[in-house]
């Protein structure tokens, strides 16, 4: 392995997300790992970085063109995140930048690559070193039906990596993570950010995009998500929905091409027909399970296991059985 430096975006800096641990795990396979944080890193986060083999953290300190310190929500706008990443690449002479595949991170990745003249791969499911030492990203495309691999031909490679691409694993040995302030000048944005609200993550359920198990409800719930949440909670799963269910106001986040893309170990769809737009956001899941009263439901074409039946009967019974199994 050549002596590469791999930068990983750490946002938020005050709590560690599973997606960040996955990125560190991938990064260790490529070279020396360093993180870029948009704010001060807490003690607990630092302990995790040490366990995951992160050699140093570039802690961005933003100021505007006039030298005034910037600490507001603007720090999270993609153009500002990109300014920090590009500054860190230049300082560390880094070769690879890894980000999660959220919408905001994709934009930040694009702007970072633009500033550095670097090649960009969005939504990689794996990152490796090619025969000639270049970075290769593998992607699953067309609603999970094709696998592609793509080589980055520039010196610096920027990639966003989808959730659940690897199982996070700490490094063989702890390291002593160094924290270094990184001065970043906030670019002229031309936009005014009037407000920014982050939806509170419920402490009880894992976030949809990162969960190992997802239970999703559709129009077939007829508005009652009780059976869906009951099974999810028995499994420790996240809850999602189809777009139709969200448009009806029955749930707040949907899975699909225009919603959240998930690739968990298990996806369970209840009362969801399996429209192409929905499939596009879940077809890369490892195990697909469906519960649907229509024996002809299209979702059966892509699932591994299915129950033809009423979800209001099937889900609570499954939840009961799971709870019994877990003891």
């Amino acid at each position, binding site marked *: 392995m050549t002596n590469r430096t791999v930068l990983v975006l750490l946002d938020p800096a005050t709590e560690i997300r599973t997606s960040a641990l996955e990125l560190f795990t991938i990064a260790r396979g490529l070279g020396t790992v360093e993180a870029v944080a948009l704010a001060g890193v807490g003690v607990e986060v630092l302990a995790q970085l040490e366990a995951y083999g992160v050699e140093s953290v570039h802690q961005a300190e933003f100021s505007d063109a006039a030298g005034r310190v910037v600490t507001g929500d603007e720090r999270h706008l993609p153009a500002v995140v990109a300014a920090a990443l590009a500054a860190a690449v230049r300082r560390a002479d880094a070769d690879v930048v890894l980000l999660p595949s959220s*919408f905001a991170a*994709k934009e930040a990745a*694009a702007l970072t690559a633009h500033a550095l003249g670097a090649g960009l791969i969005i939504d990689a499911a794996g990152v490796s070193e090619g025969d000639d030492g270049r970075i290769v990203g593998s992607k699953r495309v067309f609603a999970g039906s094709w696998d592609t691999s793509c080589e980055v031909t520039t010196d610096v490679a920027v990639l966003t990596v989808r959730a659940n691409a690897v199982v996070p694993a700490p490094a063989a040995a702890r390291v002593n993570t160094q924290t270094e302030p990184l001065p970043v000048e906030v670019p002229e944005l031309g936009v005014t950010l*009037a407000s920014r609200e982050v939806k509170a993550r419920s402490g009880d359920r894992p976030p949809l995009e990162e969960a190992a198990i997802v239970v999703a409800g559709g129009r077939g719930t007829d508005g009652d998500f009780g059976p869906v949440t009951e099974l999810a909670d028995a499994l420790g799963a996240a809850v999602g929905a189809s777009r139709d269910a969200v448009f009806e106001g029955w749930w707040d986040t949907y899975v699909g091409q225009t919603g959240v893309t998930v690739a968990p170990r298990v996806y369970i769809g209840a009362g969801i027909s399996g429209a192409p737009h929905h499939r596009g956001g879940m077809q890369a899941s490892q195990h697909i399970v469906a519960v649907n009263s229509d*024996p002809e439901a299209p979702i*059966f074409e892509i699932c*591994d296991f299915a129950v033809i039946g009423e979800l209001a009967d099937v889900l609570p019974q499954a939840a009961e059985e799971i709870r019994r199994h877990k003891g």
Partner: protein
Amino acid sequence: MRIVVTVKYVPDINTDRGFEDCRVRRTPDEGTLNELDENAIEAALQLVEAAGEGEVVALTVAPPDGDPALRKAFQLGVDRGVRVSDDILAGADYFATAAALAAAVRKLESEGPVDLVITGMAALDGLGSVVPTLLATELGRPALTLAKKLGVSDGVLSVTREHDDVTEELSAPLPAVLSVTDTANQPRLPNFKRIMAARGKQVEAWTASDLGLDAAPAARTRTLSAGPRPERPEAELVTDKGEGGKALAQYLIKNDLV
């Protein structure tokens, strides 16, 4: 109000999509206007209607067989359709695509001011969701992306931006680049009057040199391989006769998924 809407010609997601020689396989009757660009067209038409005057120009970077996307845009009510095709743009990556779109917008600007460029939130084939912000950067205009709600007043565009678990209120003075989500509006359907009007409209075909782009922007990525995934084995189907829930639980337990 003069608005450019970028639209992409993509394989229909209801068809069997795939690759040939590491390029997206294009079969003429399976190509279509990227559905999410209908939201962009709708947003543009509504803004021009509200302003009482103006023009909506649909712009695509596509091979010459990409006209069906523009024809569909005509049927929805756009005034003009411009297609940029050139061998040097074949296989364009995100950056080359954004650069070509920006050059075409500048050419349209040389005819008269462009107040707004509106894009979809993603192209349903590439699914990068990065062209809008790159296009804004190329044009040196502010980017307001992933708008769920939008409004223009006194030359200022305001949006509610929703992404991941974040909601933001942002604004920027025109001219700007805007991307809209699939929840921003309900795209109109082609009606008889618009379909008739569309028949008289011609696609304007431009080449890279018309835009002052002479050399191919160097590609920064190269596709090494593309292969179909193995078919999933036939699903195990259980009809619920009172034990369906237990069967589901047993499937998960048996496969070590609990």
